[in-house]
């Protein structure tokens, strides 16, 4: 808002006040009047007339009903006017009202000149902060915020002491959320090690004496279980899945009835890369309290992550209203569910249903935009002006919310894939068909047609059932039957004429609302590369995806890839013909020389200096290798060797247990995909060519074989060593390797040792949380 319209708005409000008799509103409108005054003051504040705002606030104090809002407004103005001592007094008064509001502590620190945005303080400041919080702790002994905040700024021995005092009573009490409360501390250097040591000491002390170190009093038996629970989450966070699983298994053995233990074990397995096992654990947790919606949702999410969509749907529906089943999740705008199932369909290549889910989320945001119209007249009538303005501001940034971003990005990816391989199901079928004899083909077509007809009939019947079920409500009144979804599989969504045009629709929304996200510009790059649209009008050059990517993160491997691919493509295009094309060509040339990465360098040189700069990082090496292959295909073997030679360094750890490699599971999967798709397609002919080529190069069959067999499977084997629980790499301890011949999963990850339990027949006694057998789910 500019100063002029703000001042104008204040004038209008004051003119309205002038109409009141004796400058006083009727008794039954006092709240509304107070709201109006607070709104007026917030307008003055926005126009930066702080003096005037404060004066008005003091003058109208008696008429403002909302005392809390009055104080918060007052302190905000005092701070803006630099009257910090008065501000301090009011923040203390606010803390007396609510000693768990972090913003009040922040404000108080600001008034005392003890606040920094990045949380970095000098030793002297830390000392003063420590003293401040110690005195506040005496005043507000029941507040948890006042105990937790010092952990953020204290260091070393003082941190250790405060952390121990903080953690002890919470472990005795049994607070399942303790780890997520502590987890932000893991981003600060050295604190994780201190926390590890202190929990290990608590564990040791309870095991030997039954109480905390230095305490005569014994702890209740549950404390050991909570300590193990915390330790398991600690090791999980540190990537030490072995230790983490050993601790959580011990906790489950100690007290097998605590549901949180199973949830966390599922989460650990998810991080370790075993998604089906994670889903099974979440389902075990769910089964322990069937009335808990959170457990149900968590379980559904895990099932979707493991691509068990049908099972997830059945489970989710347990908590929707009867008779309305699946539609209910849509009507309730249950977006996490729609996004997760969209992602799952996308992974499974079902673009139609994926698009359907992503577009459903997009529709919710359109609905929210529409819904604001309900508030315009309502808010004015009720005089809730501050809430109204807040709502308008919320609407302005509606499309920048993460769920919308995910949905739009998902939809764009679907359209990109659709463009790259139009209706994949048809081509695949054709391939299958071409291998068959004509008579077989005919039979197969008939079979397919029958199957399709059956499926259609079933769907119709089901819809009828559902509509009749929901049609008659409890009161016996006939309700308006829900319209039947005419396109349950999203087939129509796949029949778009121009997928790139559709993608552009959502891309524009992302560019407008999430311009600070790297992903937005990566998608924009992919869309525009396919459009072959380099000849942008010069006014649009600013929004060139490559430039945006470099602005956001010039060192990101993805930005590097886009930079090289873009100018490589430009370089291979034929010279422009028309005058306007020539002009843009020149502008692009100019742009190129303005980029520091490419200044005075060839693309090949730029690629090798990028590699040199980041040669310790796996993902950067992979990007450089991929680009080397794009720029100089004849150096492919060298490119592959670049990846092969990457070293998984051990993260330096101050005295903490066990080695952990730097590489993440996600990155290793990405590299495997790259090796599979970019360097080694499954085509046997190209493998042979590679082999002959390698042989010629090395003039030594052993080396050539070695390099050749450092194919994706070599990488896979290597990663299976780093991530033994990973399903993707078929690690030795993942649930996929323990599937026996009859398809039953018998030997699940065992606690600690390598001993193999004798295979038990299904349906026998199965220990808690051990995944002996994946239960046949019946709901």
């Amino acid at each position, binding site marked *: 808002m500019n100063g002029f319209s703000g001042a104008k708005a204040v004038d209008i409000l004051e003119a309205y006040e002038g109409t009141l008799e004796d400058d006083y509103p009727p008794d039954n409108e006092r709240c509304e009047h107070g709201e109006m005054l607070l709104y007026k003051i917030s307008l003055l504040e926005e126009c930066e007339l702080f003096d005037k705002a404060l004066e008005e606030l003091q003058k109208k104090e008696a008429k403002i009903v909302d005392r809390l809002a009055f104080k918060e407004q007052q302190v905000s103005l005092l701070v803006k006017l630099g009257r910090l001592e008065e501000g301090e007094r009011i923040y203390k008064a606010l803390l007396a009202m609510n000693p768990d509001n972090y913003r009040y502590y922040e404000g108080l620190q600001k008034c005392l000149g003890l606040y920094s945005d990045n949380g970095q303080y000098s030793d002297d400041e830390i000392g003063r902060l420590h003293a401040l919080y110690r005195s506040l702790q005496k005043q507000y002994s029941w507040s948890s915020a006042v105990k937790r905040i010092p952990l953020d700024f204290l260091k070393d021995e003082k941190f250790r002491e405060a952390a121990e005092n903080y953690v002890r009573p919470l472990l005795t009490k049994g607070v399942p959320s303790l780890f997520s409360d502590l987890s932000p501390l893991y981003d600060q250097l050295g604190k994780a090690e201190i926390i590890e040591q202190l929990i290990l000491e608590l564990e040791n002390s309870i095991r030997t004496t039954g109480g905390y170190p230095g305490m005569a009093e014994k702890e*209740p038996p549950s404390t050991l279980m909570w300590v193990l629970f915390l330790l398991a989450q600690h090791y999980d966070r540190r990537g030490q899945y072995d230790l983490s699983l050993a601790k959580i298994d011990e906790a489950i053995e100690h007290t097998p009835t605590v549901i949180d233990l199973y949830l966390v074990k599922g989460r650990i397995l998810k991080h370790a890369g075993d998604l089906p096992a994670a889903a099974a654990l979440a389902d075990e947790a769910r089964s322990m309290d069937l009335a808990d919606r959170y457990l149900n949702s968590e379980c559904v999410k895990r099932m979707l992550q493991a691509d068990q969509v049908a099972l997830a749907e059945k489970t989710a529906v347990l908590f929707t209203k009867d008779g309305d089943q699946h539609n209910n999740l849509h009507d309730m705008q249950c977006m996490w569910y729609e996004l997760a199932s969209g992602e799952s369909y996308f992974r499974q290549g079902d673009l139609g249903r994926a698009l359907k889910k992503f577009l459903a989320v997009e529709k919710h945001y359109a609905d929210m935009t529409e819904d604001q119209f309900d508030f315009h007249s309502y808010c004015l009538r009720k005089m809730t002006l501050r809430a109204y303005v807040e709502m308008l501001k919320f609407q302005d940034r509606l499309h920048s919310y993460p769920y919308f971003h995910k949905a739009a990005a998902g939809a764009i990816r679907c359209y990109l894939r659709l463009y790259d391989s139009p209706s994949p199901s048809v081509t695949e079928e054709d391939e299958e068909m071409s291998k068959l004899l004509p008579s077989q083909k005919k039979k197969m077509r008939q079979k397919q047609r029958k199957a399709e007809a059956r499926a259609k009939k079933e769907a119709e019947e089901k819809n009828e059932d559902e509509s009749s079920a929901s049609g008659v409500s409890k009161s016996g009144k006939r309700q308006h039957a829900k319209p039947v979804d005419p396109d349950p599989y999203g087939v129509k969504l796949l029949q778009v004429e121009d997928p790139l045009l559709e993608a552009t629709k959502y891309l524009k929304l992302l560019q407008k609302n999430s311009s600070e996200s790297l992903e937005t510009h990566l998608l924009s790059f992919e869309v525009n590369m396919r459009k072959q649209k380099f000849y942008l009008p010069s006014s649009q050059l600013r929004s060139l995806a490559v430039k945006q990517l470099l602005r956001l993160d010039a060192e990101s491997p993805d930005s590097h890839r886009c930079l090289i691919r873009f100018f490589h493509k430009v370089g291979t295009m034929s010279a422009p013909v028309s005058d306007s094309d020539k002009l843009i060509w020149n502008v692009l040339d100019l742009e190129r020389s303005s980029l520091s990465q490419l200044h005075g360098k060839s693309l090949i040189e730029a690629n090798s200096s990028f590699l040199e700069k980041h040669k310790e990082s796996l993902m950067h090496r992979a990007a450089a290798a991929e680009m080397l292959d794009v720029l100089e295909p004849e150096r492919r073997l060298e490119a592959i060797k670049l990846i092969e030679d990457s070293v998984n360094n051990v993260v330096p750890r101050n005295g903490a247990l066990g080695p952990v490699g730097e590489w993440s599971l996600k990155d290793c999967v990405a590299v495997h995909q790259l090796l599979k798709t970019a360097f080694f397609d499954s085509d046997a002919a190209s493998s042979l060519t590679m082999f002959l080529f390698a042989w010629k190069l090395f003039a030594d069959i052993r080396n050539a074989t070695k390099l050749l067999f450092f194919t994706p499977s070599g990488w896979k084997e290597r990663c299976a060593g780093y991530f033994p629980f990973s399903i993707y790499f078929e690690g030795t301890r993942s649930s996929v390797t323990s599937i026996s011949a009859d398809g039953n999963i018998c030997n699940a990850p065992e606690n600690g040792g390598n001993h193999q339990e004798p295979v038990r027949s299904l349906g026998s006694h199965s220990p808690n949380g051990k995944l002996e057998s994946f239960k046949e789910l019946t709901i």
Partner: protein
Amino acid sequence: MGAGREVAISLDGVRDKNVMQLKKLNTALFPVRYNDKYYSDAIAAAEFTKLAYFSDICVGAIACRLEKAENGAIRVYIMTLGVLAPYRGLGIGTKLLNHVLDLCPKRNILDIYLHVQTNNEDGINFYKKFGFEITDTIENYYANISPPDCYVLTKVIAQPQQKK
């Protein structure tokens, strides 16, 4: 007493929504896997089947079956009573058994009985403290554990009108 401070122990009923808690306990406590009938009997016994909570953690349970005697009276059979090992010695088993014993006179229960393996001295002594007596011995009661014999422990419930 293992704990140095008071922790509230509360009892809650078993329903189909939380029956898994009882299953988890039994898996940890007993070498036998109970069938579905055990669980439907336990739920049908309503007030006579209880889970014990130690500061919101389910750590023990008593599961009973109500049986009709010949004369139309009701007998209570204790199918299982158990507390997780780390939580023993805190009076939780006593609390569970007392709950059922207190309930019996109010519901016109004739007697209450159970089976104990003959070598389970701790178990036998525990029940004797509450007035149970060995009334019978059944040979080869258990199929897979040794010794296979069990005692029947019974306590006759004093009816309210007979009191005083």
